[in-house]
């Protein structure tokens, strides 16, 4: 009897064991391996194997030998500004789509296209459009009187980061538009009708009915895009390689440079952990504010 009870008690553990083992192998091990490496001297330029534990030297080197703080500043600007602009542009498009204008179906189909293009391809596309001599965007901006720097949009430290952001906005605004449009469609008609009866129109309707009704969708999609933008790499690689100087260097590009160009595994691992800590803090702050009052 006692044996039967004991085996019944252990059954849940046995059932979750494969998942736990899978988790250990696929997630915990790489994370643990990278954590260990962040404390080891392991530079493939000098040795194919780790040379030993060096304490926090790699963390120190992240700040002393790489433009980590410049990259962090650029990443934060890109993530916050990019998410903000994409959200509101996306919201505008979603509201337009929700009005069921003529041709909405065609627009919906077109909208999805940029998001299906690989970022590296979008990068090449924009590279040509930013070309100093006859690039479409350079030409357009010149026509409307925008002072395009002589070294080109990608070659000037005042416009390089914004040019990367613009390419990302072009590609990912439709993602916001489609997700928010789906949210708008889920708002019950009776709520909207009740609000109209109560005299709500225009901005009031948007601020007090529409936005609160899709707030959960919006909060989640903003968080996802923020994290994606925080990891911005492809467009930086193709468009500016982080330049000029460090004007458009992001954390992910910094990480690529250290790990896959300099092959300093120890420093790259330390940098990874610093980025993980920063993202975790930011997301936790966001979650605490945005998810307040949510029932899970």
């Amino acid at each position, binding site marked *: 009897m006692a044996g039967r009870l004991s085996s019944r008690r252990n059954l849940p553990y046995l059932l979750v064991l494969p998942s736990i083992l899978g988790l250990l192998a696929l997630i915990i091990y790489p994370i643990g391996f990278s954590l260990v490496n962040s404390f080891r001297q392991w530079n493939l330029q000098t*040795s194919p194997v780790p040379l030993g534990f060096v304490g926090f030297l790699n963390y120190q080197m992240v700040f002393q030998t790489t433009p980590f703080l410049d990259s962090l500043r650029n990443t934060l600007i890109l993530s916050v500004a990019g998410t903000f602009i994409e959200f509101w542009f996306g919201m505008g498009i979603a509201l337009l789509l929700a009005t069921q204008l003529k041709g909405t179906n065609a627009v919906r189909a077109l909208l999805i296209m940029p998001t299906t293009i690989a970022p590296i391809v979008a990068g090449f596309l924009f590279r040509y459009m930013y070309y100093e001599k006859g690039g479409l965007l350079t030409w357009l901006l010149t026509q409307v009187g925008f002072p395009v720097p002589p070294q080109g949009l990608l070659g000037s430290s005042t416009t390089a980061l914004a040019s990367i952001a613009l390419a990302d906005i072009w590609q990912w605004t439709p993602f916001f538009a489609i997700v928010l449009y789906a949210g708008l469609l889920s708002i019950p008609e009776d709520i909207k009708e009740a609000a109209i009866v109560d005299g709500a129109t225009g901005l009031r309707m948007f601020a007090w009915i529409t936005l609160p009704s899709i707030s959960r969708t919006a909060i989640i999609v903003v968080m996802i895009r923020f994290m994606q933008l925080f990891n911005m790499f492809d467009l930086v690689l193709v468009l500016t390689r982080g*330049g000029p100087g460090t004007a458009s260097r992001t954390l992910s590009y910094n990480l690529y440079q250290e790990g896959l160009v300099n*092959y300093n595994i120890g420093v790259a691992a330390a940098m990874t952990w610093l980025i993980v800590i920063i993202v975790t803090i930011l997301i936790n702050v966001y979650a605490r504010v945005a998810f307040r009052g949510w029932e899970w």
Partner: protein
Amino acid sequence: MKEHRKAISRREFLKVAGLGIAAAGVCSVAQPALTQTALAAGVRPRAKAQTKEIRVLVVGDPFQFALEKVLDDFTSQTGIKVNLESLAYDALNARLVTSFVSQTPDADVVTVDAMWTGQYFDNRWIISLNDYIKADSDVNLKDFIPEVLYSLNLWRGNFVSLPIAAYGQGVMYRTDVFEKAGLEPPPTDPDKATGWTWDKYMEIVKQLQGMEMDDTKLYGTVIVGAQPVPIVHMYTQLAASRGVRWFKQFPEAPWDFEPTINSPENVESLKFYKALYDLSPAESINYVWFDAGTRFSQGDIGIFFWWTPYFYLVKNDGYMSGTPSKIIDKFAVALLPKLKDDAPQVISNGGWSLGIPSSSAKQDEGWQFIKWACSAETQKKMGLVKDYNYQFSDFARVSLYQDAELKAIYPYLDTQLKLLQQGNGKIVRPPMPIYSTLEAIYGLQINKVLSGAATAEDSLKETDMLFRNALTGNFMLPYKLESYDDTLENARKLIDSLAA
């Protein structure tokens, strides 16, 4: 009826997870230790005889196109088929390092950049070719330009590769523009180069700036400004030629990597480079290697200096486009200027070489391929390939620079040889073990000066500090490992001993 389940407490879960993490940690420490043991034991795949196919990984540079055209010759001569794969620079290095670290055999012959030789050989990823060279007298080692072998192929007294494409740096200028401006053509013979200094070069650039030619307003010059690697390739040539050195003592023994990068000579050189940029198209701050060459071929640049492959690449209106450029018969090449008439010249010798990975099971066949590809016969055939308006004159053998047939196609060969013979790649871009890290720092700092984000003084002060941090952090400063007296004289002795 309500079902009751026993919940797993947080404490129990943490216990299990903690054990798992501990186990993972032990594994992560143990795995490299095992790898180290295997390496120490010298576990290497043995060469197999009578293999009929080899894999060759090359970088996507001009020589690759010429090599592909003559590849069938190798198969018909040896019966060995070649599976040739071309990759971009970064991708090739990443692919090779991944293969080497994981000890997964990938290719039997690989392209090795001079900058990778120290890393690859010290890590035992590629093998020494000394024994092969010594056993094969038909390699004709004495025919190679010693300065090229020294710069590209030797590390710690070993041939780790042989050159398939040897580059130097020289000047290209518009003959019609010079004629119109009433300028003397720059010299092509070092013995008749009195007065050919960087100051004179700047004077010419300034004179050509803004000049009208065939309804085109000219820029005096064009530079390469993209960071980190391209700008270092161009800037270090200028700096080395003006006496700048990276370290207190390297490559001569004993190695001392105390940085000497923040020197008055370098501050002046960096200001000079910024001045050249100010006389270049503004967008050249973003230019990579081929952008500068392509810009010259477009016809609005008066004079510039760059890698010798551009002596033929600028004959096309775009990079390897095959369409003749508008300046195809309106340009000539010349020597690189010096700091002063009595100052020694140092040319940046670079290029591509072929080596054999230690993980290859077909090392003998790989050696046959290298010997064939780097032979005078094959190199001449590559030079005679007509595609892209004849695009291969990166010869590493002296005999090919005296070949009448090749000289008729590439009239600048005499000048190119003289440039290569003034070369010392180990001074211009020292191939020491953490070169890539230092190059990334240096390239970024030089670029900052061009963009106006830093002055030459501040940039080099920061470069010096970052160099010190990187060198100290990687245990290179002070250097406690074994040095090698890596001089041209010792290289010549090695060449003599292997060729005997």
